[in-house]
């Protein structure tokens, strides 16, 4: 049993115990959940202390023959991401104690979060493709369960099913991709498979393309993005953990894990870049016109994830991971803060918010920092990570990447545009939530309890300082660059460059300025076009028409076919036999003379037939 596996198993066991014993008492359930996650964090710290970036920690799996399982790889990348996952999970668990105080099903809720943590960690440390698949799918399951936590509401039920099915559609590709990878490389070990696949362009292209489908689903990229905004029906801590910091980032992480294979498939990288561009700008635009606090953040998440995908497409894996980590902190912070607002006010609808500054000072400050980090204001983490993506785009535009330079240019331009739009929706969100006339006096809104705001405060720290970690080559870049599949020592510091900094600062000012200028316009009264944009460019209707309705029609056909054709043919045989029986019964009317006549006739016929037969 390796420590890595232990890190996965501890929260898993906590989940099991939580399900078995959690029903007994709330504090016990909370203790199990927090304890489990904290222990996982402890193991993650221990692993980090072993300096895995210098020498990856390889854990062999169990079982021989067809399906060995449980091999782990902890390299610098895995160790870093694991730390982030455990850290955010722990904060979310603590936060949930307060947030879910009134929740009747708290124990199963906490247990599912623990299970999620275990699954995510399994993805992070997976050394074989099968463990990767397990973690990948169990994450999806937990997402489904937690989105549907409040299944008394139709909205939650629908959103849960939608989330599961849309990601599952992507997962067909993912699973087939894994099958192809295993089939083509004849190994289930992740490093070996990746190395082997990287040497064969065909396999690399097919496998990475298929796996990309799963990534698009999990990381909510076009065209499999539609589930994430609806997933906001889940509790806010869930959104913070699963739909902002970790699970949606797992797609990016998996591509990073299999990166050599992707680098061997330029066509796929180009596709990724295009998808990222579409998603990035589209989601940001949609975010501008949302009416709900969490939906703004959800579309923002979609948009930000696109940055990471874009970075991956441009060959800048380190930048992608850097942005992923920094985004995890800031977005988790934002969702938890949003949760605090919703907890206090009782609604996340932007119409009903405003002027909460005084009554919720801690939440106000932390959320403001979070928004600034999201927009990428110096010197917060988001600034540095976003800049690293822009720098990568610039390099690609100059032809320093696997993809063509037009791809780099496109990404660069779209990224800058998106920064402006991001600044606009962040500004709008901030204004609608915190400024304006006081609305809290009559409703008695108060600051959330310490158990909830302490995690916010804690998250502020990385959101502020994390950006500096990449300035030196020996710091973060060395950590995240070190993987088993790539040679060591090529890490580069991720520093902003003047040109991109200037461009992005201009973009932020333009975006935020526009939001300020238009602040007095009634932002909720929209024309047709506005509603169309707010509804995600009508994408759900396309889904409805292209997938759901044809599916239901085919179901109808098959069901009807089964009822009529097949069932009836079977019962028809039965009825037919009975009819034949009746028919054959008819001649026997009791008249022996008829009986004898037919017998004699039969003899004559038989004689004639046989005589003919003998003669010929």
């Amino acid at each position, binding site marked *: 049993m390796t420590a890595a596996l232990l890190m996965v198993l501890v929260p898993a066991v906590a989940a099991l115990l939580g399900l078995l014993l959690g029903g007994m008492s709330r504090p016990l359930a909370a203790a199990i959940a927090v304890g489990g996650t904290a222990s996982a964090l402890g193991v993650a710290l221990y692993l980090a202390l072993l300096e895995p970036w210098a020498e990856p920690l390889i854990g062999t799996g169990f079982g021989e023959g067809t399906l060995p399982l449980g091999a782990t790889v902890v390299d610098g990348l895995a160790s870093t991401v694991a730390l982030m996952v455990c850290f955010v999970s722990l904060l979310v668990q603590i936060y949930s104690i307060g947030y879910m105080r009134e929740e009747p099903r708290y124990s199963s809720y906490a247990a599912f979060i623990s299970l999620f943590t275990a699954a995510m960690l399994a993805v992070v440390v997976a050394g074989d493709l099968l463990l990767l698949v397990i973690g990948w799918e169990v994450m999806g399951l937990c997402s489904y369960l937690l989105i549907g936590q409040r299944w008394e509401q139709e909205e939650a039920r629908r959103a849960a099913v939608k989330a599961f099915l849309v990601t599952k559609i992507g997962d067909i590709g993912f699973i087939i991709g894994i099958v192809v990878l295993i089939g083509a490389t004849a190994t289930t070990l992740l490093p070996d498979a990746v190395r082997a696949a990287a040497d064969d362009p065909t396999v690399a292209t097919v496998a990475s393309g298929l796996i990309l489908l799963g990534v698009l689903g999990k990381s909510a990229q076009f065209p499999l993005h539609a589930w994430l905004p609806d997933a906001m029906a889940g509790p806010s801590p869930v959104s913070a953990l699963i739909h902002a910091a970790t699970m949606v980032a797992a797609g990016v992480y998996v591509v990073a894990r299999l990166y050599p294979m992707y680098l061997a498939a330029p066509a796929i990288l180009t596709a990724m870049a295009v998808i990222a561009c579409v998603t990035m700008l589209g989601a940001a635009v949609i975010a501008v016109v949302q009416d709900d606090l969490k939906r703004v953040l959800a579309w923002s998440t979609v948009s930000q994830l696109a940055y990471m995908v874009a970075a991956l497409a441009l060959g800048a894996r380190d930048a992608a991971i850097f942005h992923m980590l920094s985004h995890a902190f800031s977005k988790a912070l934002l969702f938890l803060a949003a949760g605090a607002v919703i907890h206090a006010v009782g609604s996340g609808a932007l119409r009903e918010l405003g002027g909460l500054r005084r009554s919720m000072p801690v939440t106000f400050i932390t959320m403001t920092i979070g928004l600034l980090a999201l927009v990428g204001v110096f010197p917060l983490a988001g600034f540095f990570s976003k800049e690293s993506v822009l720098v990568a785009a610039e390099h690609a535009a100059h032809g320093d990447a696997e993809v063509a330079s037009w791809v780099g240019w496109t990404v660069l331009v779209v990224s800058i545009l998106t920064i402006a739009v991001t600044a606009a929706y962040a500004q709008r969100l901030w204004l609608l939530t915190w400024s304006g006339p006081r609305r809290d006096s009559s409703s008695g809104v108060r600051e959330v309890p310490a158990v909830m705001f302490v995690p916010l405060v804690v998250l502020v720290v990385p959101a502020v300082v994390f950006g500096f970690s990449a300035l030196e080559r020996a710091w973060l870049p060395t950590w995240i660059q070190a993987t088993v599949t790539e040679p060591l020592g090529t890490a580069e510091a991720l520093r902003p460059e003047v040109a991109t900094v200037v461009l992005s600062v201009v973009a932020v000012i333009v975006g935020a300025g526009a939001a300020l200028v238009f602040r007095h316009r009634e932002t909720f009264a929209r024309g047709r076009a506005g509603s169309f944009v707010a509804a995600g460019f009508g994408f759900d209707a396309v889904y409805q028409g292209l997938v759901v309705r044809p599916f239901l029609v085919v179901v109808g056909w098959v069901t009807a076919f089964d009822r009529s054709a097949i069932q009836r043919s079977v019962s028809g045989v039965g009825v037919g036999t009975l009819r034949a029986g*009746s028919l054959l019964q*008819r001649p*026997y*009317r009791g*008249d*022996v003379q008829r009986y004898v*006549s037919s017998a*004699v006739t039969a003899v004559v016929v038989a004689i004639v037939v046989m005589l003919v037969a003998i003669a010929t």
Partner: protein
Amino acid sequence: MHLSLPLLLSVSLFGIGVYGLLVRRNAILILMSVELMLNGVNVSLVAFDVYWADVLHAGQSMVIFVITIAAAEIGLGLAILLLLFRARRTIAIDEATELHEEAS
């Protein structure tokens, strides 16, 4: 005498018997028809016996058996008909249809 003449007789007897069997309604007449058929058998047996000049005279001896069988059959048949007549007051064979398939 050529073999075909007695065989013609035999076939005729047998055929008349079959005809009677198929068209007569009176049970007694049916018994007689069967007797005709058996006599047709007898004729052909004797004819074949002569034709083969069978030293064992299997054909002729068989005729004896056939006659015996016929006698036994007639005896038994009349007894059954008597029983039937007692129960039904008729020996019309097409009226003995109480036992038959019932459509269900």
